[in-house]
């Protein structure tokens, strides 16, 4: 299901969408399927399925640890697609968050087709900007897949316009200058960045990097169309002694965040 459908729903309900991130294969291959279902059941509108990669340059220690655990468990691209299917089968939207090299190596066309076949909506590409993405843009456009590119506080207005013009589904605004990880206060860079992006596009704008609780989610939901949470979900699993308590932790966090996006 495409991201556009999610935002039709959330806009009708007058709220922001909640997007939760978890790497495929984390905490292990089977647990990962249960984990994403628990996140959807507890209120995530969409799941960002991470493709674990050996060299994740924009991830902080928490997501690195989660992705490394998934790699150590032998997670492959096929497992990523199975996780996407698990999300899609719940009726929620699944997008894949991936560094570029695994897609390039696997074959851009092949990856895009398998993603489509698994019911995935599109890709978030943290180290691929539209000006270096002709292969992905062609493969996505041929299949109506969502292309979620990132804008940053350091982006020039010109680059924001270029990026939003190339995006489909939504635009990912990175709220802080830094890597992924929870932060105790939300960034004052997020709102101006969302405003600058809005000036260039009608696409929904999602804000990520740093959100860890319902109050922060509510604050961001006040000016963004989606609140994206990653490290806090990974942390909930990493801190749990076993899968049942990990699933409870994910549910508790998702409920808190889901209530937050409804307060915003």
């Amino acid at each position: 299901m495409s991201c556009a459908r999610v935002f039709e729903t959330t806009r009708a309900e007058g709220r922001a969408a909640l997007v939760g991130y978890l790497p495929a294969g984390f905490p292990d291959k089977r647990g990962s399927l249960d984990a994403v279902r628990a996140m959807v059941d507890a209120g995530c509108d969409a799941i960002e399925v991470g493709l674990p990669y050996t060299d994740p340059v924009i991830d902080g220690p928490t997501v690195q640890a989660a992705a490394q655990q998934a790699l150590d468990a032998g997670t492959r691209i096929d497992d990523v697609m199975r996780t996407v299917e698990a999300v899609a089968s719940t009726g929620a939207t699944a997008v894949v968050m991936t560094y570029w090299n695994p897609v390039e190596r696997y074959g851009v066309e092949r990856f895009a087709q398998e993603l489509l076949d698994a019911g995935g909506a599109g890709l978030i590409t943290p180290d691929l900007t539209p000006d270096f993405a002709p292969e992905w843009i062609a493969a996505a456009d041929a299949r109506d897949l969502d292309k979620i590119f990132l804008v940053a506080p350091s982006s020039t207005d010109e680059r924001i316009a270029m990026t939003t013009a190339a995006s489909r589904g939504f635009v990912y605004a990175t709220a802080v200058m830094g890597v992924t990880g929870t932060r105790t206060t939300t960034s004052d860079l997020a709102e101006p960045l969302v405003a600058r992006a809005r000036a260039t596009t009608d696409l929904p704008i999602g804000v990520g990097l740093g959100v860890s609780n319902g109050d922060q989610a509510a604050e961001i939901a006040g000016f963004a169309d989606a609140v994206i949470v990653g490290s806090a979900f990974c942390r909930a699993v990493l801190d749990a002694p076993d899968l049942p308590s990990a699933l409870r932790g994910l549910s508790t966090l998702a409920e808190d965040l889901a209530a937050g996006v409804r307060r915003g």
Partner: protein
Amino acid sequence: MTTLDPAPGASRFDADEHGWFGEPGLFGGRFIPEALVSALEELTDAWHEAMADPAFIADFEQVQREYAGLPSPLFHARRLSDRVGCRVLLKREDLNHTGAHKIRNVIGQALLTRRMGKQRVIAETGAGQHGVATATAAAYFGLDCTVYMGAVDTRRQALNVARMQLLGAKVVPVDSGSATLKDAINEAMRDWVASVDHTAYLFGTAAGPHPFPSLVRDFVRGTGDEARAQCLEQYGVLPDAIAACVGGGSNAIGLFTAFLDDAEVEIYGFEAAGDGVDTPRHAATIHSGASGVLHGARTYVLQDDEGQTIESHSISAGLDYPGVGPQHAQLAHSGRATYLPVTDAEAMEAFALLARTEGIIPAIESSHAVAGGLRVAERIATEKGPEATVLINLSGRGDKDMGTAIEYFGLGEAETAGEPA
């Protein structure tokens, strides 16, 4: 002697404005988080302006001359020459301040940092040579310095950690991933994403996203510019072949650049083959890798069938890297340069050979160039006779490698072997 090309973009071997070498889309480019794009564009502008500014060039050349001890000599290795049957020349980058070619790069980038008004520099390091060079330049220019180093490497290279600390740098061990050079680069990138408004990333090799491969090349190309002029001046000829070791590839591109347009000069890069390219333990990226994206550029990468980086192995930490600079990928692809593997064993044999025949203890990295260069020299000697010339880049000295040498050759024993009193 001019060490800098004042007009980037002037050669057909240069990258285009997007950082592509050769055919657009093939090698190079800029595959990075959007958050870093503005910093790289700022760096690109500053670099272009600096290279066109005679005052910057004069500063660069003065610091190289008075502080780094450049130009380095071109040395005729007579006993090695006798051995292989033709003239063997060594470009003595091992005599540079801090012991390697790397000082050229950091002086250039530190001057650029100062020009951009930034007060802090960060760097990655494998064996510690680039870290030591960066810490040295930071001390010289009064910049705050943080060096990221794989935790495995901080243990293997404790002496260099101490040198960096003595020079005033903060050394941060990196535990993530394989805890080696590639992970140190990842961690430096993470720092930079968060600190980019006041921090410059002094990248240690001619790899990474545009403009680093070209920018680093401009700062290290003095090696080849000097060597070419010295060879002509001292011997009246160009070399028949030149050779350098290739990890990321900065010393190699430093040597090669001046000779790229000399079609009669054969160009050889020697990659670390570790236990052998038929084993899983090597770092022969061009020989055994596949095209992919690592650390911001499309180049050859040691990777599995799903694009996960495969850990490299070499006895030489400076060549122990699963990627390679994109210009080398292009030079290999186009056939202008030839890249061949040299094993740990071959490199260590050359390490000992150079010590005994010429009284020079080379870096183990450079020993790969010596081993490969001598192979080339033996062939050229049989083809062209004793007047032929092979020029090898001796990119660094081996003081840092004595621990490895002691272990490899079992050297400590002789101390107690009953020498006469």
